[in-house]
């Protein structure tokens, strides 16, 4: 065994020889950025060997480092193996930084009908004249106290073994926990004395980046704690594809364990902050995309990522929490949301449950945007869905100074029409480091309204203004001058960035229109547009409409449901009756494969304009643009 010390935090870990530095760092609890899943391809996991011996392939490193950097000990953590005691410096840029994570959900006034309940009973001890068996005595007691009919309840063998001692030891005063499971009402726990107030459940949004847990008091029907955590699988690859490939190469078990660990970490934080015992958590409801759900269950997701994209299972599932390593009550249950397809997963079904669109007569449009986007349209009778790649531009990727919603990211921006100077705010209020999705959308809308760009997104270099430059490769607009930034260089938006943004927004809009056309629905028939996910929360709705990201409907009818996945999970947790509808919703949704839809490409080209080629689809935006452009002359 060798000791590896990670600087600057002096975290130490003992690992066997030949362990990769990446593996060691992960075991030390450090979240290292690995986009490629540790294949040595992405060059993100840069570390510096301060002292000690490592081994790695020089050739692979040459691609990523200069001779000077190599001389300083630079290497890729995923490629370097431990050959002795080591001191490793991990630069800030290699660590995954804490993001502004979304933990709010839409408030729901849902009735309390949990699938698990506790019953405190004080039983009469058996006598010669009342010699009924212990179990019957217990179950009748529960029935008498408002529980299910005794005949419909059952106790597993483990419980039967405990019952006689426990009943007598507690002087016939016990609390029984009854859960409604696929086989009926099951006695999942029996405790001495009155613990009936100690009944908790957790709703989990298992995202590929973040895990969010809401802890509920299932007796009072109150939320008691919220916690979130990074999905630890990120160390095996940033995107889903990289993780599936990791699973193919190294087996699924590590990813399964990391998924469970990520949930457990958040669960522990939440339980600690609420001051409760994890053993009192009897049910965990999980909403996650189809691949995450498969991984959590340890089911091979490999067949889902290649044609013909077949998941192993899409219906809702209930399993014992212990079987997949979730740290709640040892007899607790786990409920997993169903999916529509490989692309439309349980998180989207949870979104649908959260916004209630499947119960309404009116037509709603639900949009969930990340690197991929999902769109669902419909009402209580019918629903269409589709998914596609928006490209990372809306999340700040593929944009020169784009970044995720990390501290220092500009998330809001306006441009003064008189001076063309911007005013902005950043996450955490520190000096700007880059632009995040909502900031980029603001910027695009503002540049358009001030005629700095034309509707094609081309910068009008004819403008004589110091912020508008011809740039090195592309014309650019200077958002923040170097001296005002945290990074010491000008933060600019180039014409190429704008092109990428337009392509991303065009995909989303074209997907919406494709669904509308498939159903024969006009934008006027859409009553509400729901934005799910982090993206919607920071978004300026007016600007989203201005650039044509979504079909134009009155701004008041655009709603953010925030983290719909966790909201949906909350609902399913506190009201078990809602769960029954989930499979029905999932079956009802027709999935449209955009690549097979010839009209999609046409819609895409049409949408790749600001706000759109068919201006009659954006009458209000058009009016607004005309006014402010007239003003500019």
């Amino acid at each position, binding site marked *: 065994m060798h000791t590896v010390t990670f600087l600057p935090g002096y975290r130490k870990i003992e690992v066997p020889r030949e362990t990769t530095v990446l593996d060691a760092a992960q075991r030390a609890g450090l979240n290292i950025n690995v986009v490629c899943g540790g294949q040595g391809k992405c060059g993100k996991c840069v570390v510096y060997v301060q002292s000690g011996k490592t081994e790695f392939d020089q050739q692979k490193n040459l691609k990523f480092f200069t001779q000077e950097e190599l001389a300083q000990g630079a290497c890729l953590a995923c490629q370097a193996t431990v050959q002795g005691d080591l001191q490793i410096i991990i630069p800030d840029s290699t660590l995954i930084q804490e993001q502004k994570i979304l933990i709010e959900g839409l408030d729901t006034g849902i009735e309390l009908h949990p699938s698990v309940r506790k019953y405190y009973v004080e039983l009469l001890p058996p006598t010669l004249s009342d010699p009924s068996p212990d179990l019957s005595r217990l179950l009748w007691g529960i029935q008498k106290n408002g529980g299910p009919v005794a005949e419909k309840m059952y106790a597993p063998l483990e419980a039967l073994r405990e019952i006689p001692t426990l009943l007598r030891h507690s002087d016939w005063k016990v609390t029984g926990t009854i859960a409604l499971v696929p086989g009926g009402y099951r006695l999942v726990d029996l405790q001495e004395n009155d613990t009936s107030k100690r009944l908790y459940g957790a709703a989990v949004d298992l995202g590929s980046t973040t895990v969010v847990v809401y802890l509920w008091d299932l007796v009072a029907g109150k939320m008691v704690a919220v916690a979130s955590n990074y999905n630890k699988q990120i160390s095996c690859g940033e995107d889903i594809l990289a993780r599936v490939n990791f699973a193919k190469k190294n087996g699924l078990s590590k990813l399964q364990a990391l998924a469970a660990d990520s949930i457990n970490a958040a669960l522990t934080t939440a339980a600690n902050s609420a001051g409760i015992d994890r053993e009192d958590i009897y049910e965990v409801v999980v909403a996650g995309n189809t691949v995450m759900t498969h991984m959590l269950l340890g089911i091979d997701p490999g067949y889902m990522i290649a044609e013909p994209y077949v998941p192993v299972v899409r219906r809702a599932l209930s399993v014992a929490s212990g079987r997949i390593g979730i740290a709640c009550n040892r007899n607790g249950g786990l409920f997993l949301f169903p999916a529509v397809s490989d692309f439309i997963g349980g998180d989207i079904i949870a979104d649908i449950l959260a916004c209630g669109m499947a119960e309404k007569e009116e037509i709603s449009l639900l949009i969930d945007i990340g690197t991929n986007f999902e769109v669902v349209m419909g009402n209580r009778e019918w629903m269409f869905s589709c998914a596609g790649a928006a490209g990372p531009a809306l999340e700040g990727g593929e944009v020169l100074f784009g970044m995720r919603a990390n501290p220092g990211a500009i998330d809001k921006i306006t441009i003064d029409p008189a001076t063309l100077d911007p005013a902005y705010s950043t996450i955490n209020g520190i000096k700007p480091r880059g632009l995040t999705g909502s900031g980029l959308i603001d910027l695009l809308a503002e540049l358009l309204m001030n005629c700095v760009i034309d*509707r094609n997104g*081309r910068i009008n270099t004819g403008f004589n203004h110091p912020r508008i430059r011809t740039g090195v490769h592309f014309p650019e607009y200077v958002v923040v001058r170097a001296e005002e930034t945290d990074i010491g260089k000008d933060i600019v938006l180039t014409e190429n960035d704008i092109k990428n943004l337009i392509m991303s927004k065009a995909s989303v809009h074209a997907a919406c229109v494709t669904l509308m056309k498939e159903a024969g629905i006009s934008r006027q028939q859409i009553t509400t547009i729901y934005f799910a996910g982090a993206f919607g929360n920071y978004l300026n709705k007016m600007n989203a409409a201005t650039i044509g990201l979504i079909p134009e409907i009155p701004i008041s009818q655009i709603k953010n449901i925030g983290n719909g996945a966790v909201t949906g999970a909350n609902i399913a947790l506190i009201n078990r009756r809602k769960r029954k509808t989930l499979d029905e919703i999932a079956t009802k949704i027709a999935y449209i494969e955009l690549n097979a839809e010839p009209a999609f490409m046409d819609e895409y080209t049409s949408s790749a304009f600001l706000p759109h080629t068919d201006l009659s689809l954006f009458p209000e935006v058009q009016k607004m643009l005309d006014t402010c452009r007239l003003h500019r002359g």
Partner: protein
Amino acid sequence: MGSDIRFGWTGAIGSVILGATRSEGGTRKISYRVGGGTTLPFLDHAPASSPLVALEICDEPQYWPQIVRNYCGDLVDDVSAWATTAETVYGADLIRLYLTSTRQRNFSDIPLVGKAVEEVLSATGLPLIIEGSNEPGIDSEVFQKCGEAGEGERLLLGTAEAGRYRSIAAAALAYNHSIIAQSPIDINLAKQLNILLREIGIQQDHIMIDPYTGTLGYGFEYSYSAMERIRFSALKGDADLAMPMICSAIDSLTIKEVREADTAYQDEMAVAWEFYAGLAAAVAGAEIICVRHPKTVGRLKKAFTSLKTGSDPTGRI
């Protein structure tokens, strides 16, 4: 039950005026009002004008198809004579002058461009289409020069594209010329360019759409459908597409089928290739058909005459 075709069109194609006679402030013998259709091409009960046929010529023949150089002989070396012949012998309705001289390496003799335009203007009384440079570096000066040289003549200037439209638009605005708006075979891109042009002040009646014409056998079907869709949308009331269209299958004389045809009937092959595409394009909605082989001009004009006659005003036959 009636047998009239009812499409329920709500829009009409706008018109663009090309050329100016003396009374209109220019020196042309004739001017045209292009466009104005109210239904699919050749179905008008009260016929509007026939499509026009433009002969394409150039000021530097080294960039011109060999077939035309062979057919026209020395004529191609004298752009004035070429223009005169196009009008008097070949019977073209319009002349489209390509300023191919600007394609020469490091071309910078801008006054030469103005001179070529002036020469052609004096050699023919027909309205003129001028095709400027292909080089962003000199675009602005070339278009400015062309615009100036043809002031008052209501030229049609080519070619504006989504990535470069500002300099040509400036010249058109300054001297009251119209422009060709070219986009790569896509109705949406055509519309987008028209919107961009409108937003910098070009009037709708100063734009002709060129949806880019793939040569017969080399993508012509895409162009054909793009034109049909543009015409259809315009008639359905889309004002941003309600401009007349111009078509030029410029590769017709250099594609393999023509180039490798037996010399004995190479001209015939060239004419057939231009003719079939030109006729189909007119049926799809093009109002100006540009060709390069002199023999194609007369054949297309004859066909358009036959297409324009014989429709009974009731729409019945």
